[in-house]
C-alpha cells in the first residue's frame, strides 16, 4: 500500500542495506571504509548521480545525498543520524581500500586499451563492453559506481561512438517550407545532416523557441523528399516509405508532442501538400518505454532492432541514463536519432543527465547540435518574467534579485514577488491569483463549472493557474498547500455542500499516478472532480482530446493537484504559475528547478519566498556526478565533439 513519494524515487535505505549485505555475505567485505563508500554510492544513485566521485567527497556532499532530507526538506533534528560514521576517509585512503577489495572492479587506467581488437578475447558482450563479472561496484578513476550504472554509461558511450564511426547512408531531406525563422531553418539543416555524420542530432532550446515547429519542419521536409523519391519510381533507400517514430520519456510529454504536430497539420498541408500532411497525421508519439517494448521488469521483451529510419525523442532532458542506453542499444546504425529538449530544465528523476552531457560535448558549429534561443511565445504584458527566466538560467543572481525587487510591489505585470520567509503568513496573497487568474479562469471558475457538471470548462479554468512547490511533503510541501487550499475552498462550494471530511471537492484538480490500459490514462494526466452533493465523478482529457468520465471510486491511482511539485509539472503549462520557493537550505533549491518552475507560465509568474531562497536557488546549479560527458568527449571523433 505505497503512496506517492517525493521527487526522489526508491527506498535508498533498503538499497543500501541490500548492497552492504551482498558485500559482506558474498565477498566477505568487512572494511568499514568500503562498506560506507558502498552505502554512499547507492544513496548517490537514489539522488540521481550515476556515480560517487571520491574527489568531490566531503560533508556537504554527503548531506546533500540524504534522500530523507531531500524528500522531506527538514533540516536539523530528524536528519542528523543520516551519516554518523565519523570523519570521511581521505581520497588516498578510499582509493586504496577500494582497489584492495574483491567486490570492486577497477577499470584499467588507460581506456584506449579497451578499444579495437583488444577486447575481443573473452568477457565481452554483444555491445563490445567488457563484462565486469559479478562484482557489484566499479571504480573508474576516482568514480565509484554500482555495476548497473557503470554498465549503462559505458553502453551509451560505446553506442554513440560506434554510430559516429559508422557513417550511415545519407537520407535526403527536401526544402524547409514550414518556417522561415533563420535559426529554425539552420537547425533543420543541421539535424538532417547530423544523423549522417555523428549518428545523433540534438535540438536544444528553451520554452517557446520553436522546438516543435522545427521538428515538424524536419519531418515534413523528410517526408516530402521521400515521396518525391517514390514518385520517381526509384529503388534504393526510398524503395519503402519512410518509417518515423516519435517518443518522449513520459506519456504526458508524448501526448503533447502528438497534439502540437496535429495542430501544425493545416499549415503543413498548405506548404508541403496534402499527402505529406496526411502521412504526418498518422504519426502518434508514444512513451520511450512503449517504443522499446520494455516490460514491467525493466528490460525489453524483444531484442530486435527498431525498424525505423528516423526516431525523434522529445523532452529528452527527462531521459534517464539506463533508458538512454537501452534506446541506443535498440537502434541500428542506419536509424537516425534526434533528441529534442531543454538542457537547462530539471533532469530525469532517475540517474544521469544525458541531454546536458550531450549538449556539453557535441559541437554546435556545423556539428550535430542545433540550438534555438529566441522566444516566440511571449504572451505577457511585459518582459519581466521572461527576463527572470533568462537570469535564472544563466545563474545571474544579481539580475534575478533586481527583477524580483522591481516586481515586489507590482500587481499587474508578468512578474510578482511576495517577499516573505513564511509563505503561510501570506496565504491570502498566495492563494488569490489561484482562485481567480484574472482571465476568467482559476479555482473558483473551476468550482462553478464542475458543479454544473461541465468537465471541459472546469479543465480549461484549471489550466489558468497552478501552485508549484519544490517538495511534496514537509512544511514547505505541496501536500500542505493542498490541505490549505481545500480548507479555504470548502466555504466556496456553498449550496450542495462540502465538508472537511469529503475526499474530493468539486473543481478539485487531480493527477493520475499510473498508466492504465483500460482507460488510456497515463501517469501525469490531469483531470478535475465534477458533480454536486455526495457523488463525485472525475473527468480527464485524454490525449486524443476526448473526455474520460468515471466515478471517483473507479480511478484509484489519483492524487489531488491543487499544488504540484515542480518535477510533476514538467511538460505542463499554465497561464499563471505561483512558485513557493524552497528554503535556501533545501538541497532542491537549484537553478534548474527554479527555471523549470518559472517557464511553466505563459502569462504571469508569482514568486513566494525570501531573497535568501532566491539567491540560493539561482546560485546553485544542479550538479550530477557521472562519467558520461568525459567518456563522450574521449570516445567521439573530433568532428562532432567540442572538447
Amino acid at each position, binding site marked *: *500500500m505505497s503512496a506517492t513519494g517525493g521527487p526522489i524515487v526508491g527506498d535508498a535505505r533498503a538499497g543500501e*542495506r541490500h548492497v552492504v549485505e551482498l558485500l559482506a555475505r558474498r565477498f566477505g567485505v568487512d572494511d568499514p571504509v568500503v562498506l560506507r563508500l558502498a552505502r554512499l554510492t547507492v544513496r548517490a544513485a537514489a539522488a540521481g548521480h550515476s556515480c560517487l566521485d571520491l574527489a568531490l567527497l566531503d560533508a556537504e556532499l554527503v548531506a546533500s545525498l540524504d534522500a530523507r532530507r531531500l524528500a522531506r526538506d527538514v533540516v536539523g*533534528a530528524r536528519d542528523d543520524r543520516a551519516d554518523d560514521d565519523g570523519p570521511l576517509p581521505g581520497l588516498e585512503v578510499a582509493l586504496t581500500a577500494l582497489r584492495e577489495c574483491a567486490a570492486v572492479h577497477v577499470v584499467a587506467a588507460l581506456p584506449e586499451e579497451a578499444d579495437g581488437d583488444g577486447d575481443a578475447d573473452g568477457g565481452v558482450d554483444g555491445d563490445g563492453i567488457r563484462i565486469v563479472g559479478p562484482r557489484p561496484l566499479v571504480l573508474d578513476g576516482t568514480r565509484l559506481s554500482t555495476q548497473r550504472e557503470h554498465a549503462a554509461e559505458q553502453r551509451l558511450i560505446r553506442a554513440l561512438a560506434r554510430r559516429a564511426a559508422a557513417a550511415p547512408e545519407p537520407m535526403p531531406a527536401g526544402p524547409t517550407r514550414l518556417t522561415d525563422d533563420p535559426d529554425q531553418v539552420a537547425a533543420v539543416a543541421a539535424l538532417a545532416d547530423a544523423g549522417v555524420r555523428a549518428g545523433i542530432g540534438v535540438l536544444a532550446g528553451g520554452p517557446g523557441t520553436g522546438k516543435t515547429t522545427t521538428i515538424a519542419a524536419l519531418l515534413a521536409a523528410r517526408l516530402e523528399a521521400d515521396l518525391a523519391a517514390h514518385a520517381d519510381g526509384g529503388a534504393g533507400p526510398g524503395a519503402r516509405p519512410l518509417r518515423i517514430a516519435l517518443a518522449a520519456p513520459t506519456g504526458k510529454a508524448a501526448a503533447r508532442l502528438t497534439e502540437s504536430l496535429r495542430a501544425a497539420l493545416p499549415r503543413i498541408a498548405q506548404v508541403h501538400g496534402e499527402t505529406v500532411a496526411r502521412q504526418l497525421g498518422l504519426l502518434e508519439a508514444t512513451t520511450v518505454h512503449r517504443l522499446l517494448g520494455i516490460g514491467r521488469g525493466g528490460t525489453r521483451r524483444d531484442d530486435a532492432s527498431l525498424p525505423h529510419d528516423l526516431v525523434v525523442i522529445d523532452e529528452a532532458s527527462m531521459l534517464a541514463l539506463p533508458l538512454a542506453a537501452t534506446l541506443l542499444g535498440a537502434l541500428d546504425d542506419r536509424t537516425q536519432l534526434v533528441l529534442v529538449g531543454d538542457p537547462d530544465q530539471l533532469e530525469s528523476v532517475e540517474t544521469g543527465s544525458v541531454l546536458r552531457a550531450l549538449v556539453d560535448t557535441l559541437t554546435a558549429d556545423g556539428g550535430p547540435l542545433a540550438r534555438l534561443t529566441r522566444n516566440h511565445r511571449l504572451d505577457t504584458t511585459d518582459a519581466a518574467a521572461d527576463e527572470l527566466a533568462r537570469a535564472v538560467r544563466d545563474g545571474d543572481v544579481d539580475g534575478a534579485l533586481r527583477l524580483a525587487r522591481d516586481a515586489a510591489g507590482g500587481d499587474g505585470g508578468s512578474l510578482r514577488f511576495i517577499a516573505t520567509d513564511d509563505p503561510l503568513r501570506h496565504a491570502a496573497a498566495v492563494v488569490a491569483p489561484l482562485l481567480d487568474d484574472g482571465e476568467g479562469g482559476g479555482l473558483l471558475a473551476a468550482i462553478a463549472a464542475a458543479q454544473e457538471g461541465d468537465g471541459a470548462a472546469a479543465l480549461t479554468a484549471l489550466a489558468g493557474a497552478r501552485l508549484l512547490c519544490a517538495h511534496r*511533503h514537509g512544511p514547505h510541501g505541496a501536500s*500542505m498547500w493542498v490541505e490549505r487550499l481545500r480548507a479555504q475552498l470548502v466555504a466556496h462550494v456553498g449550496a450542495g455542500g462540502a465538508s472537511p*471530511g469529503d475526499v474530493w471537492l468539486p473543481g478539485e484538480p487531480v493527477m493520475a499516478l499510473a498508466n492504465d490500459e483500460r482507460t488510456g490514462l497515463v501517469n501525469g494526466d490531469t483531470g478535475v472532480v465534477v458533480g454536486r452533493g455526495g457523488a463525485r465523478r472525475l473527468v480527464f482529457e485524454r490525449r486524443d482530446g476526448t473526455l474520460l468520465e468515471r466515478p471517483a471510486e473507479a480511478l484509484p491511482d489519483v*492524487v*489531488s493537484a491543487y499544488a504540484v511539485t515542480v518535477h510533476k509539472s514538467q511538460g505542463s503549462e499554465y497561464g499563471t504559475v505561483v512558485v513557493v520557493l524552497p528554503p535556501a537550505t533545501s538541497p532542491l533549491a537549484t537553478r534548474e528547478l527554479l527555471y523549470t518552475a518559472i517557464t511553466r507560465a505563459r502569462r504571469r509568474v508569482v514568486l513566494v519566498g525570501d531573497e535568501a531562497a532566491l539567491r540560493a536557488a539561482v546560485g546553485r546549479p544542479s550538479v550530477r556526478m557521472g562519467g558520461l560527458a568525459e567518456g563522450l568527449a574521449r570516445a567521439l571523433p573530433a568532428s562532432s565533439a567540442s572538447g
Partner: protein
Amino acid sequence: MAHNLLGTELATCSTAPMTGFYRDGCCSTGGDDTGVHVVCAQVTAEFLAFSVREGNDLSSPRPEYGFPGLVPGDRWCLCASRWQDAYDAGVAPPVVLAATHARALDWCDRDALFAMALDAPE
C-alpha cells in the same frame, strides 16, 4: 523487548481490526518492514480523506493484502513517514504513545507525536 515512546514495553495497538506489519496487533518492525509501520494512530475521517488524496486509500478493503479497510475511530499501525506527512499538512490523526514503537523517532518529530498523543504523560 520492543520499547514504546514512553520507554516502556510496547503495548498492543489494535486487534480489531488486527493491525501491525506482522498482523499481531502491535506496531513492531523488522528488517522487511521498509515502510516502518510503527505509529499507532486512531484514524479520523479527515486523515482518511487526506490519505486518498495522497494516492493511498486506507478506507477500501484490500483482501489480497489482508487489509480490512479503515473507518474513523479504528486504531492502525501507520507508516511513520506518512504520519509525519499528515502532521506537516495539518491533518495528523491522534496517536497512542504506549503502542507506538520507539523507532518512530527515526521519521517523526518527537514534539509532534507528543502533541497529538491520546495518552500524553503529565
